[in-house]
């Protein structure tokens, strides 16, 4: 689903992502784990065509990132770190626009909106505004925006950031139940452990370890992903935030 080679991005000469190689296969939930400032969002924004890579190549959902960005956009869904609604908008109307921009007829779009709201547990929320939702509901509404056109590949940037533990666990259940290929970033070690088939650990713009949570722990003789991070980078994740 994703094949990236040596993806690099510098901002005004300062490197944020330094030669990331990654492969994500159909049906996998892959976690991109790293402290704040590690380069997760920058990588996701490159893979979703929002940022041009400084160098490197990638194929996303069968389309070349640089040669066919429009093909990439048609096959993916993206849920940004900070959400994607203005507070006074209507959830149903925004979802409808999103589906229409993905090329669905008005009728088909209305059906997709009803379906996706059901899928994220917000059936009947069409006339609600994001400002009226709880934190967990708002994140699920964001999820609906990324999912409404039933993409083959979904990017989630820190999907549970700032939620309380109960809302996080609830969102994990929703994400697990989506049955689509997912590439998600997180700085929560327990999230990577609980949710992901495979984890890529990123630090300082480089991937420093990868594997299933079980393999990573076994290979580094560690009890938790926290210890894996410590072994690989020489410092605990909690202190690593740039």
């Amino acid at each position, binding site marked *: 689903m994703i094949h990236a080679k040596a993806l690099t991005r510098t901002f005004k000469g300062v490197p944020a992502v330094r030669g990331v190689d990654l492969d994500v296969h159909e049906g996998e939930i892959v976690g991109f784990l790293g402290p704040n400032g590690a380069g997760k969002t920058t990588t996701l924004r490159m893979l*979703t*065509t*929002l*940022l*041009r890579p400084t160098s490197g190549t990638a194929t996303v959902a069968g389309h070349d990132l640089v040669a066919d960005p*429009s093909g990439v*956009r*048609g096959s*993916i*869904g*993206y849920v*940004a770190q*900070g*959400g*994607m*609604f*203005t*507070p*006074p*908008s*209507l959830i149903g*109307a*925004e979802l*409808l*626009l*999103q589906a*229409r*921009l*993905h*090329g669905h007829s008005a009728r088909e779009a209305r059906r997709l909106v009803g379906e996706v709201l059901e899928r994220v547990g917000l059936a009947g929320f069409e006339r609600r505004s994001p400002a009226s939702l709880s934190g967990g509901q708002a994140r699920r509404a964001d999820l609906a*925006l990324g999912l409404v056109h039933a993409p083959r590949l979904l990017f989630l940037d820190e999907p549970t950031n700032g939620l309380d533990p109960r809302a996080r666990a609830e969102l994990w259940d929703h994400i697990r139940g989506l049955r689509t290929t997912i590439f998600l970033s997180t700085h929560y070690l327990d999230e990577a452990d609980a949710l992901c088939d495979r984890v890529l650990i990123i630090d300082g713009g480089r991937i420093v370890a990868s594997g299933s949570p079980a393999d990573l722990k076994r290979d580094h003789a560690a009890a938790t992903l926290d210890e894996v991070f410590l072994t690989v980078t020489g410092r605990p994740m909690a202190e690593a935030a740039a």
Partner: protein
Amino acid sequence: MTAFVVAAHYLRETFRHKFVIVFGVVQPALYLVFFGPVFTGSGVGDWDVLVPGLLMQLALLTCGLTGFNIVFDHRFGVLERLRVTPAGRFSLLVGRVLKDAVLLLVQAAALLGLALAFGLRASVPGVVAGLALVVTMALGLAALSYAAALTLGDGLFAPVMGTAVVPLLLLSGALLPMEGAPAWLDAVSLATPFRHVVDALRALFAGSSHGIGWAVLSVGLFLAVALPLATRVFNRENA
């Protein structure tokens, strides 16, 4: 096609918050009520001289400041979300601009209705042609306003554009015809497309077509500059 989907979406949003529509007409309507009687009594001209100026004021205040709408879309990630769809960035811009044009037409119709009640008498074909001219010009104005909002960002857009529309309004001769202006001011005024549009509107309202050629030419030039410029800003990766 996509542009119409975008325009329809934003029109529905705007009509949901009806106060936005009313709010845009308030200032020109206040001029009509509190300035109109003074203006028409001063000997400068009648309602058919004032109202074209108020239409220009309406266009500058609504389409000129419409970029404010995109500031929030930018801040809350809506812009990025729309960009991760196959919809072209050009249609995303054109859709918003079309929305502004339709909205301006509705607001202008309301203002003209009020002006009729106050005593405006004008050539009907002239008014229709004048509206077409103003709305076409406003396409460029709205496009530039979005470009300015994406370039200036949250903090600067409101103060910079709020200040910029004042000299543009005064220079267009909307509030007082430029006939009495000193030569240098007249020259500066003639360098803006807005002056030519106001002059043409006054002629059209009076049933003449004097100066229409200049107005069409300056609107054409204005669009030829504004639309590509705004498209470039919209295509910028971090806009």
